[in-house]
């Protein structure tokens, strides 16, 4: 007599289990299949193509009524099981009890609805089953706006499909880049770029505060105050194992229903598989391990021994036109090596993570043709040492072939320069016609003449073709993470409108996953200078002084220096400084060369408090720690001095109030002297103004540090306003063109005073544009960082310890 087998849940795992059972032991079981949905087993992973309109429901059905009939399986679809009665070994539905000898729970998982107000409004849906898809398709037919919460696999498939159906789609993602569990930042960036090119708006680091609406969802409100219109809200922020029946039945349940290697639950007559289970503390959501579980459980049920072993898992995104693959562990680390291949022109990124000459992680974007070849090597742990040099190029270059450069493998029709449409063949023709350098190829073909992103490829073609005759020009790279120099990077940021550090690293072909202490501060500066409104300053890419808004000292304490506009102060401010010095036990108080007072040896923990005290007395940060404006040194000028010709203190204060808070490639110091006696020592500053009877002599590019250099005259002007304009325009020109950590005198030495004068002095339109761009940037950065850092919301996160274990009782 056949055993009574009851299965709860008609999903992909139970569908696969049924196939194994009817194959291996036809007639051994009297099977009843319960499903809460009014449908049978269908291929849930194909819901995205159905939503996108690429497939119909009928095409994704895996088992139809005829199949169940042919194998004698009783189906009870649309009849949810409400209870498991373990003692009597039966399950209860609205129609009454059904007895079992063996029970399989395969209830899957449900969408996790993030706990925000409005998450239960009509118009808010998950993306788990055919009903959800139908709800979304109905909404899409009406058009309008959709917001997808969650930028993981599921959310992005939904977003792309809804966009294909004609909706305006915004993805709201909590993390810094898309699909962070499967992709590194570089691949996440490429994916975002592709989705944005389809008209999908992507918001990362975005926290949902509430879903707004009266009778149904109308908009999504974010923590930062933005409100996005939404006729449809798709919750794709994760899944939750559906364990309610098991919990009620008193089975052992953690995050999922706990099963052993053979898929037993804590009750010997009850088994479980699929997304509802937890095996060895892991809950699975991808289909491959679920199929493995089905095979194991079929063996267990038919009396054979089998053990479930967690498999290597790989991921692909099912969005038409997006090639993306990820598998294994792709974190960087000691003992691990990366092989990275980037082809910025074609938007290709491939990264293999190796450990002990074996592939342990794979991330591919743009070209995944070789994914299965790599994944094979990962799963069987093949020793790749013999083919390491050519591994990244895939099976086409194996085995025994000479290591070939990526460009040598390209056909003549391959486009090298995307901006000017130059193919490899044209570049080869230019080389055959006598071009031997990048500059000559550029002049003859136009390749790399625009954004310059393909310069490396052109040089590689030159090297492939000319061999030893080609000498690559010696550009000093920014650091070991890249071959490109500072100027190349800035040009790329402008030409390709790159607005994040991962974007620059991808397009410029960075060799490391997230840079180093040399390149990250430089990139952060270039981005905030180029895109003041769009780019958000990255505190983690700043070195200690700029991150902590104070100068670190050799013993780990900090120095604190309030701003004294133009070197002027008041008794009240001096009193506040004295009070702060006493209150915080400041060991040294020093008058500086920049006409300010330095409090040295302040403990890190005290920084926010001492700033708050100084703020309360009306003082702000002196930025004595920044690559930015430091001081404007002045003499007392016409106010008091019998020789003074102009109001030098007034001009100094005015300049400082305009310039403070701005970030520059290196520090910037100014001075204004009231007469040619030059008491403020203006002739050795980055910008120095010397007042004379007839007006103002503006000099730039002086130095009095490692080098000593007199300023060079920029112009002589009649009015204070003109002197201010020249100063601001010069500093903006410096901000936009100098290399990071290059002082103005070095920069001017390199590019020439004539070039500077032509833009700042002679071309009035350019001068006005420079001033306008400076003001735009200052609308963001002209603010006191101390006041910001001392605010309570910064305190706990940045300045206080994460925990204080000195207070724990000793054992």
């Amino acid at each position, binding site marked *: 007599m056949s055993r009574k087998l009851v299965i709860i849940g008609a999903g992909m795992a139970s569908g696969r289990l049924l196939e194994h059972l009817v194959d291996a032991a036809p007639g051994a079981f009297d099977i009843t299949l319960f499903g809460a949905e009014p449908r049978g087993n269908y291929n849930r992973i194909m819901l995205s193509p159905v939503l996108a309109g690429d497939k119909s429901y009928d095409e994704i059905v895996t088992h139809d009524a005829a199949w169940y009939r042919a194998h004698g399986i009783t189906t009870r679809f649309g009849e949810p099981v409400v209870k498991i009665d373990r003692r009597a070994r039966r399950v209860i539905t609205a129609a009454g009890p059904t007895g079992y000898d063996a029970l399989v729970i395969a209830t899957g*998982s449900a969408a996790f609805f993030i706990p925000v107000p409005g998450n239960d409004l009509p118009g808010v849906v998950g993306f788990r089953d055919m009903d959800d898809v139908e709800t979304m398709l109905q909404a899409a037919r009406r058009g309008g706006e959709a917001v997808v919460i969650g930028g993981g696999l599921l959310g992005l498939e939904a977003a792309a499909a809804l966009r294909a159906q004609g909706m305006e789609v915004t993805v709201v993602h909590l993390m810094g880049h898309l699909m962070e569990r499967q992709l590194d930042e570089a691949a996440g960036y490429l994916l975002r770029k592709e989705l944005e090119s389809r008209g999908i708006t992507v918001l990362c680091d975005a926290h949902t505060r509430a879903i707004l609406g009266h009778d149904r969802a109308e908009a999504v409100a974010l923590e930062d105050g933005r409100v996005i219109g939404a006729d449809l809200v798709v919750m794709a922020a994760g899944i939750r194992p559906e364990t309610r029946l098991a919990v009620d039945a008193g089975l052992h349940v953690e995050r999922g229903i706990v099963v052993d290697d053979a898929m037993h639950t804590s009750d010997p007559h009850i088994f479980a598989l699929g997304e509802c289970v937890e095996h060895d503390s892991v809950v699975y959501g991808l289909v*491959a391990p679920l199929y493995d579980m089905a095979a194991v459980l079929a063996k267990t049920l038919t009396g054979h021994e089998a053990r479930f072993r967690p498999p290597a898992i*790989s991921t692909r995104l099912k969005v038409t036109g997006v090639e993306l693959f990820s598998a294994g562990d792709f974190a960087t680390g000691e003992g691990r090596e990366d092989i990275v291949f980037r082809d910025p022109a074609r938007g290709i990124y491939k990264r293999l993570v190796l450990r002990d000459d074996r592939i342990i992680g794979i991330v591919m974007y743009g070209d995944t043709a070789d994914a299965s070849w790599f994944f094979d090597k990962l799963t069987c742990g093949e020793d790749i040492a013999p083919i390491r040099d050519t591994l990244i190029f895939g099976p086409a270059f194996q085995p025994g072939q000479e290591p070939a450069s990526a460009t040598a493998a390209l056909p003549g029709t391959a486009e090298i320069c995307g901006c000017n449409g130059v193919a490899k063949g044209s570049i080869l023709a230019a080389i055959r016609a006598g071009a031997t350098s990048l500059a000559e190829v550029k002049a003859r073909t136009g390749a790399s003449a625009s954004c310059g992103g393909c310069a490396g490829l052109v040089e590689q073609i030159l090297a492939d073709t000319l061999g030893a005759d080609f000498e690559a020009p010696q550009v000093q790279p920014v650091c070991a993470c890249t071959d490109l120099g500072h100027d190349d990077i800035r040009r790329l940021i402008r030409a390709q409108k790159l607005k994040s550090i991962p974007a620059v690293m991808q397009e410029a072909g960075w060799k490391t996953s997230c840079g*180093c202490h040399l390149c990250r501060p430089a990139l952060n500066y270039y981005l905030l200078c180029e895109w003041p409104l769009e780019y958000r300053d990255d505190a983690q890419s700043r070195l200690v002084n700029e991150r902590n808004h104070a100068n670190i000292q050799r013993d*780990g304490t900090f120095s604190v220096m309030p701003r004294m506009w133009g070197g002027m102060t008041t008794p009240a401010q001096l009193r506040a400084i004295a009070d702060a010095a006493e209150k915080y036990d400041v060991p040294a108080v020093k008058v500086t060369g920049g006409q300010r007072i330095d409090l040295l040896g302040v403990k890190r923990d005290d920084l926010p408090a001492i700033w708050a005290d100084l703020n309360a007395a009306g003082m702000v940060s002196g930025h004595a720690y920044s690559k930015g404006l430091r001081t404007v040194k002045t003499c007392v000028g016409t106010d008091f001095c019998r020789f003074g010709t102009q109001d030098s203190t007034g001009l100094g204060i005015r300049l400082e109030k305009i310039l403070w808070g701005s970030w520059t490639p290196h520090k910037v110091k100014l001075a204004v002297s009231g007469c040619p006696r030059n008491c403020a020592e203006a002739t050795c500053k980055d910008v120095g103004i010397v007042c004379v009877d007839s007006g103002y002599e503006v000099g730039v590019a002086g130095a009095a540090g490692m080098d000593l250099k007199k300023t060079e005259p920029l112009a002589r002007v009649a009015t204070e306003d003109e002197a201010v304009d020249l100063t601001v325009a010069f500093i903006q020109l410096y901000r936009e063109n100098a290399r990071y950590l290059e002082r103005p005198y070095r920069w001017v030495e390199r590019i020439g005073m004539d070039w500077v004068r032509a833009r700042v002095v002679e071309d009035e339109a350019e001068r006005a544009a420079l001033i306008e761009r400076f003001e735009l940037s200052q609308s963001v950065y002209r603010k006191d960082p101390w006041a910001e850092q001392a605010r309570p919301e910064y305190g706990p996160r940045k300045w206080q*310890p994460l925990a204080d274990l000195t207070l724990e009782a000793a054992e």
Partner: protein
Amino acid sequence: MSSTIESTTRPATAAAGKGDMGRWIDIAALDDIPPRGARVIRTRLGCIAIFRTHDDRVFALDDRCPHKGGALSDGLVHGHAVTCPLHAWVISLEDGRVQGGGEGRVGTHMVRVAAGRILIDASLATRNAA
């Protein structure tokens, strides 16, 4: 292979060493540390820096550079390494070794992440100078 469902796994232990395995103290949420950042915890034997890397791994090291004692928690975090704020020594977060030829090694401690919480080896709370 593909899926409409997200895979969820419990992150594995990020560091290993001696200590009473299995006893952990929950000290904070992972999100209390910015990615590529660090915060410190105070213990009786000095500060320990807890680092969160770009890939959301967490490491715990003594907050002292072997060179001149710089606070590594104020360094710049890149990959699984940190650059000391004082003289730019680069320290591996994985094993505390100085990279690129410097002498010395920074002590590492057991830490792990579970369900978005940072857990540290319980013995750090009870250790004493004695």
